[in-house]
């Protein structure tokens, strides 16, 4: 058994600590030690995006990061998208637009789409398609996912312009 190291990190704003074997990927730490099972494993090789998370704001695959690398960083997962009990506009639009079927890829898509909209509030269809090209969905053909992201972006722009006016 490999050596374990104590890791102290923040997950969705909460401080968590766990003993982490040095060869364990962050995906396993998050799922098995922290208990955020919304982070999914589809491939373990960084090809499917189901384990998309943000690490200090940067979009990464949790299966390509070691658990010990998370020390002192801030992690964002799908579980952190709900704010003040309210669904994020992306979450609402995914449901409204039937942008999920089986739903296993949905957490990764939401985290990746949020990372896109945080940087680019008004992406074109092509920009959305390329920004989400690292996330595999086998159910939808992506049609309704792209439409949901477009609708969420529109909503978020409206509410941000409203809050600016205030």
């Amino acid at each position: 058994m490999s050596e374990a190291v104590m890791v102290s990190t923040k997950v969705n704003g909460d401080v968590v600590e766990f003993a982490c074997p040095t060869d364990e990927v962050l995906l396993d730490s998050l799922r098995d030690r922290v208990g955020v099972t919304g982070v999914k494993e589809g491939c373990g090789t960084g090809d499917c995006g189901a384990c998309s998370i943000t690490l200090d704001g940067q979009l990464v695959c949790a299966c390509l990061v070691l658990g010990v690398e998370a020390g002192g960083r801030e992690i964002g997962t799908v579980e952190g998208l709900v704010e003040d009990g309210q669904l994020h506009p992306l979450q609402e639009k995914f449901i409204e637009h039937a942008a999920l079927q089986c739903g296993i890829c949905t957490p990764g898509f939401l985290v990746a789409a949020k990372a896109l909209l945080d940087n680019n509030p008004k992406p074109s269809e092509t920009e959305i398609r390329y920004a989400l090209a690292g996330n595999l969905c086998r159910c939808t053909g992506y049609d309704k996912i792209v439409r949901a992201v477009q609708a969420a972006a529109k909503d978020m722009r409206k509410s941000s312009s409203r809050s600016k006016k205030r």
Partner: protein
Amino acid sequence: MAHDNSYTGQKFEVVGNRFIRPDGVDKVTGKARYGADASAPGQLVGLVLRSPHAHATIKKIDASKAEKLPGVKAIITAEDLPDLTGGDRGMADILENCMARGRALYDGHAVAAVAAVDAQTARQALKLIKVSYKKLPHVTDVDKAMKPNAPVIHDWIITGGVDPKPAKPSNIANRTQMGHGDVETGFAEADVIIERSYKTEQTHQGYIEPHACLASVNPDGTAELWVTTQGPFTYRTVCATLLGLDIAKLKVTSSEIGGGFGGKTHVWTEPVALALSRKANRPVKLVMTRDEVFRASGPTASTSIDIKIGATKKGVITAATLELRYQGGAFPGIWAMLACMTGFACYDIKNQRSVGWDVIVNRPKVAAYRAPSAPMAAYAVESTMDIVAQEIGMDAVDFRLKNVAKEGAQAPYGPLYGPIGIEAALKAVKKHPQMRAKLKKNQGRGIACGFWFNIGGQTCVDLNVGTDGTVSLAVGTVDVGGARSSLGMIAAEELGISYDEVKVHVADTASLGHNDTTEGSRGTFSSGMAAIFAARDAIEVLKGRAAKMLDVPVDAIVWENGQAKAVGKQHGNLPKLSLKEIAAKSPNTGGPIAGHNEVVADGAGMGFACHICDVEVDPETGLTKILRYTVVQDAGKAIHPDYVEGQFQGAAAQGIGWALNEEYVYGDDGRLQNPGFLDYRIPVCSDLPFIDTKILEIPNPNHPYGIRGVGETSIVPPLGAIGNAIADATGVRMNHVPMSPIRVLEALDQAATLEDQVSAG
């Protein structure tokens, strides 16, 4: 088109709307629990050791070192799974596929498994298990496996369906023949006869969630299995048989399922997890890696197909034949037989014959993949239909319409069709604006048709009315694409209440009678039928309670718009009672109100589709880009149009991936070269355009609401539609799927060389 109109006139209040799905919030917040998301006290981690060889005798398995590793709680081999199948060949094949019995039959075949306290220990233990193999000759190609000099994989396989019975074993498990009329006479009447051969490579369902389960077996013979599956009841039967458990003592709970597409209709590691748990007497969680999913779970068949179509100058097909060679992996399959049944199903061909050969090779055991076997046969048929049309100078749509199957036509497998939608689909395609969109240089357009039977099968539901008037519906089909919404809508429609007042649950095997696996696009069709009957059953109870409350005879009560109403002169002034009011009084009027139904849902309506595809082919790279794509398909009745569209789009996307990229690549050593999503490339978001859909509603007369299954049919046309579009764009006919850049480039180069030779000559 003549069909039973009894349900077309039905006015729906709830059905046909686009409601929010009941599992939506759980799935967007990460709360939904899939196969790998469950835990049990004291659980161990299970891992499987797999053969690195395509075909090898297992001389010895030495687990002594692994057993001594601290933290290892159980190691099993085939010895821990004794054969209890009692001569059931199919069951014995499943058992052998779960764990090799003296011989590894393909790269990835399980040979041993371990359960340990954590993943690190389990991984280390796998490395300590020493297996001595003696390599055997192997064959992975379907055509090569049929040759007389091919290594024979099973000495017990004597080709079925052949007279006289062969004396010697071979890799040909079975021959199937279907059709009608006299093809020789038919070809003699033809003005044009086209013969072609095609190959398609093996693809995987590619569900994003790997197989995963949590198994727990107790010494008293009771057991539980939490698992990602399309068929918890089937898994229960199979696992109970293989492990020697009583069916009623094994409770199987289907988790949320992260995609299945047919691949989760078969057990893979579940019996292994149960055997590990039995040996360790602790719960065992076993999750496949993606590598294992590709190497050792349900791909579809690779195929080799010959086709011959004869037609008159006026465009009437006089005869057609198909010769279909499908490999089922290391065990006998039914895949060529299914191809025989579906190949010519879209057309009314008086003289037709389809011959199928089910072949065994050293590859993983083939599983169903969305309309299994149909896309490959349709690729051959639809490509050749275009060639014939071109030869006689007819438009591709008109040629198909001239020969289209209508009500009363004979299906390739015998029966006469009822009302079907392929003519309507072709007519809708003809009128579709995409057919008039301008094409530029290197661009082309193709259309293709597709068919899938759809099935019904054993179904059982429970409907319970709460004292507040809300309703829970327990179903035994798994929700693979939004069925909980559709089924809730159906129950609400029937009871006359709102969609919000119904909650649909997928029940475990201890809570409901047997339900067949959710396959064959049967979920909404069959559980929908049972939900209607269960609601009607509950309505009878509600009427009885209302009669008590109003003190009138029960035959004076009618149910209208969610209310009980007393009819007849003497009762006219009595108040109407809502479901809510009756439910509130139920504790005092006879107790709980429930409806129940068990049914073998017969009469699944056949599904037909026609697709339009526009492509651009880059002559420098051979890359094909999908520019526009339209799916037209008959749904019978679309209960929830969003999820019907979702099925059309998802199926089309899988077909597009199959047509252009996806393939299993085997090396000369018989090992799979690309068991990962990097090298087995499924379509990504930037590969596809929006996929336009048109839902046709030609009611299925065998269903109270006219429903047909919608899940599978639309994976059938894309291979042909894209092949036809590439031919239109380049003038080159592709005869090998996937039509990947390298194959297209080769075909373009060959055509150019041929052209040079012709002009030089």
